[in-house]
């Protein structure tokens, strides 16, 4: 037997970004949205005309602004993690503050979008497309709100020296949750604002 076959392979030691707890939460979040996506696809398959016409009535500007806010805040928070890995604590805090400020644009944009919808006669009873639209986007908004509260908590810990280059799992856990929430929005955006 060749010598290299006698040497046991090193075990796979890939890690959980952040901690295992947050990934339990993220997995539950993904499963919840998978179920909501199935609701979307079943509804779309049954009422294709309503879904094609419905997207025309929504504010594409609002959807695009929310998308740009989500990807930009995700980028800033990823930069915050990259900075703390090299021990640049102050820079990491600046990136996190930038991520928080941009993420706060989401509730503002969402409120403006709802007002725009109501002014144009769009509410939860405007048809199957809008029922599903409100169902998914409100759910996402709730998850994003938890994420914003998480950013505030992590920022408070960061300001009192809670994270170092060696131990920043809390910051990384928050970043993982926010990125997962970002991916969910990217999918929702294509459902309601792109496909007409």
């Amino acid at each position, binding site marked *: 037997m060749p010598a290299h076959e006698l040497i046991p392979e090193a075990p*796979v*030691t*890939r*890690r*959980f*970004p952040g901690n295992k707890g947050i*990934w339990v939460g993220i*997995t539950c979040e*993904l499963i919840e949205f*998978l179920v909501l*996506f*199935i609701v979307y*696809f*079943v509804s*779309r*398959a*049954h009422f*294709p005309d309503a879904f094609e016409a419905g*997207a025309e009535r929504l504010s*594409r500007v609002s959807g*695009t602004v929310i*998308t*740009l806010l989500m*990807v*930009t805040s*995700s*980028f800033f928070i*990823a*930069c915050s993690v*990259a*900075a703390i*890995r*090299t021990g640049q604590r102050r820079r990491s805090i600046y990136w996190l503050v930038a991520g928080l400020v941009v993420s706060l644009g989401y509730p503002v944009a969402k409120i403006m979008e709802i007002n725009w919808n109501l002014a144009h006669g769009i509410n939860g009873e405007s048809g199957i497309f809008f029922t599903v639209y409100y169902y998914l986007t409100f759910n996402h908004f709730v998850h994003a709100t938890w994420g914003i509260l998480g950013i505030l908590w992590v920022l408070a810990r960061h300001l009192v020296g809670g994270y170092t280059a060696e131990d920043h799992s809390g910051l990384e856990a928050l*970043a*993982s949750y926010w*990125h*997962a929430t*970002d*991916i969910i929005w*990217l*999918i929702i*955006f*294509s*459902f309601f*604002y*792109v*496909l*007409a």
Partner: protein
Amino acid sequence: MIDSTNTAQSSALAPLTYAWLGLVLLTLFGLGVGQWFRGVGWQPLLVAAIVWVKSWLVCRYFIESHLAHPFITKVMRAFILFAPIALILTAFFGSQFARWATL
């Protein structure tokens, strides 16, 4: 206990910046696709591809799922594949799917 010392986590900002630029450009391009190719048969294919690429960019560069535990890699890979595949199937086989999904 998971050992995190042998992973190659990135601390460089350039790849993150490129990923963010890609996400912004694909978002704007996706909007264009929604308008320019309205009613064209293969539009859902293009939209599905854009959704998958954008999701992959976030997984690969922001979450670094390729460096994560295999469970996370598989969960993220499956999740970002689900919507594009379902989009295509609904676009091309919507009526059959509706029949199957009727109670």
